[in-house]
């Protein structure tokens, strides 16, 4: 397990996840205090990914519960396997007859059957769903409750029992305690505010869009063979794009997609035409694309100015011929 927040950073880094101290501290504390983490933040900043890499780094298998409207106990916790019970009853019919042999009254027979009750309401006939699986797992596990904001408030209420005591009550059997307390990650896009009761039981982590330096490092780590200079230019454009008033602000996953797309196109630098043609990789709404296109000049000129300020004229001179090379044009059109 992790000894310190620094160790968390290092071990997650080995799994290919670059995080800052804030994330590391929260993960570390969650492990130490055995508390669930509620991860919030815009879509695509790596909330689910964080759970995955922590699972890999700590060697705990991940059990995932995807939330949606209408998710209920039967889907999340456990369900009685009715058809199996029915099947067993059919097969065991003779046995029942034996058990009931000798009784003369209906009441007596019912009593006999009543004694066998526990056979049918035992763990044998329970279909464990993710929550119960996490609690009953033989090895310590990691439970990811994804997009918990999509679930109904009722579901949230019953999550409380699981999250605070790590136990589940099945009326017919009793209370099932956790063999090992799982690490729990809840992710939320903040579509709905979670109740205070739930929040109180969790540590809170807010992951925002990364800053420029962090994003370059992430690109470097995640996309093989990307040149430092292209990565920096690309991240620069992304950071400026995020400042625009867009319907859907592009996040890290879009940056990665874009970088891969550019690599596939064999691009060396960003120029206006190239950005214009590949905008649809990062922006998913027609209105956003139009807005970005009208601002495109500004994004690019600012970059050119920076280039001038840093490296002087040569850097700019290099860019221009590259933009005009026939090879690239061929790929693009």
């Amino acid at each position, binding site marked *: 397990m992790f000894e310190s927040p620094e160790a968390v950073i290092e071990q997650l880094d080995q799994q290919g996840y670059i995080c800052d101290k804030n994330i590391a*501290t929260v993960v570390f*504390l969650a492990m130490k*205090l055995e508390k669930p983490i509620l991860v919030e933040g815009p879509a695509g900043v790596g909330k689910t990914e964080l759970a995955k890499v922590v699972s890999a780094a700590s060697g705990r298998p991940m059990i995932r519960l995807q939330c949606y*409207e209408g998710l209920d106990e039967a889907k999340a916790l456990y369900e009685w396997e009715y058809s199996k019970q029915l099947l067993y009853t059919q097969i065991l019919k003779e046995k029942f007859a034996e058990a009931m042999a000798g009784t003369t009254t209906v009441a007596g027979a019912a009593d006999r059957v009543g004694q066998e009750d526990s056979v049918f309401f035992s763990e044998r006939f329970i279909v464990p769903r993710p929550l119960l699986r996490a609690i009953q797992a033989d090895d310590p596990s990691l439970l990811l409750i994804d997009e918990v904001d999509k679930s109904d*408030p009722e579901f949230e209420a019953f999550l409380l029992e699981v999250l605070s005591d790590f136990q589940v009550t099945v009326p017919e059997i009793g209370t099932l305690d956790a063999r090992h307390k799982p690490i729990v990650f809840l992710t939320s896009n903040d*579509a*709905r505010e979670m109740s*205070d009761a739930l929040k109180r039981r969790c540590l809170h982590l*807010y992951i925002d869009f990364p800053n420029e330096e962090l994003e370059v490092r992430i690109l470097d780590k995640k996309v093989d063979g990307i040149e430092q200079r292209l990565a920096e230019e690309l991240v620069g454009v992304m950071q400026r794009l995020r400042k625009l008033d867009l319907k859907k602000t592009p996040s890290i996953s879009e940056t990665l997609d874009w970088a891969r797309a550019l690599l596939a196109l064999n691009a060396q630098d960003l120029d206006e035409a190239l950005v214009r043609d590949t905008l649809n990789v990062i922006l998913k709404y027609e209105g956003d694309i139009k807005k970005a296109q009208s601002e495109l000049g500004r994004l690019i000129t600012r970059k050119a100015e920076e280039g001038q300020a840093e490296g002087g004229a040569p850097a700019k001179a290099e860019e221009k011929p590259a933009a005009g090379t026939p090879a690239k044009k061929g790929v693009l059109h």
Partner: protein
Amino acid sequence: MQQKIVEFTNLLRKSGVRVSVAESIDAFMALDELSLSDREIFKDALRTTMVKRSEDIATYDQLFDLYWSAFYDGLKNSFEQAAGDMEGEFDLEQMMKAIQEGLQNMEGDPGELDLSELAKALLSQDMDKLEQLIREAAEAAGTERIENMLQLGFFTRRTMEQMDAEGAGDQLRDLAQQLRESGMSDAQADALLELIDKFLEALRKSVRNYTERELQQQNFDYMEKFRRESLLEKSFYNLTEDEIKKMREVVVRLAQRIKNVLSIRKRRLKRGKLDLHTMLRRNMAHGGVPFDLIFKQRRKERPKLVILCDVSSSVANVSRFMMQFMYSLQECFTKIRAFVFVSELGEVTQVFKDKDINDAIEKALDGGDVINVYTRSNFGFAFHHFWQNFLSSVDNKTTVLILGDARNNYNDPRAWCLRDLHNKAKDVVWLNPESPSAWGFGDSVMDKYLPYTDVAEECRNLKQLSRVVDRLVL
């Protein structure tokens, strides 16, 4: 330390961040697991255990800096200044190096060098350690009991005594003397002596500073200063350009939230008759015994909406955000028609069809090319105009939403127009940016209109606005 965290928690609560007792206990448990030497980790640990809403993070950061870092930064500043104030050419790094060398040259091992913790911290300018020492000494001196300005000197002195600042000074001066004896140049030794004096002075200043802060914190006004003037509760009357922009984002988020809640509430409302077909199919697994009941979903009629916005300057902001709200919630209504008026009335529905919502609102507030906004409000005239031309568009599924302060400039209110409107419409909702106590006074004709409204509410800030909207779309 515990005392400080409890105090900080109270500060958070006073600033509107909800921190429960369980959460502050969590914070203590978290701090037990961590080394406190790293300020950033300390900050993150407190945040993750106590602040659970992303909106509150900004407040937390601000308060944290004020409460924990301001003193530390002041401390650091005063020491940097002390080094900067040295006469002649002086290089702190060089001095430190010289001291290191001097110590090595000295007879005997450095362990013999008997310096107090404070002296060591001063010599190495270990700010974290210094801060800790000052806090501990202040606690021992009982500084938190300070009540007025006159006690400042007393508690400062007492804190200094608790730390044995004088003793540390003597030790350091002895050290300088020893260094001189073991071969440090006179000039450098003199400089060191001067530096020691400067550092001691800086320490005294910092302690006084700390004592002053303690005094301020006793003051309720000081706490009050931190209270965030939340955008939600800020009055629409005085908004800066920047705040309008921020407010717009808040409206978007509120609208989104209402939509989400709505889908849940609606689902419950929509439950209709038993759906036999689906139920039989679903319950095949149970041998045809209907364990799960399936109901048909009833369709709920979405209301039509007619908005009448006063766009005279006094209520322009309320109209702005109301329209944004309504158009963000478009899918909750079958149809929205928007009218603006000051004295004349004009329809701006088309403007919203043609333009992006924010542009459309700005245009509508500007009269939308259909009305003249540079006149004086005349509600009666506007209502009469509506009554003449658009009354037929109102039916029993229509909610009419009126925004205005009902300041009629002593014109005829023509309340009978509103009465007819009220008779035809499903609901008439009036939002007034003035508080109910002002209704009917001066040129306000709100009291004349009041009998013909189903809901009339004060709507001066976003919180009130969102509450009204919430009721409206249900």
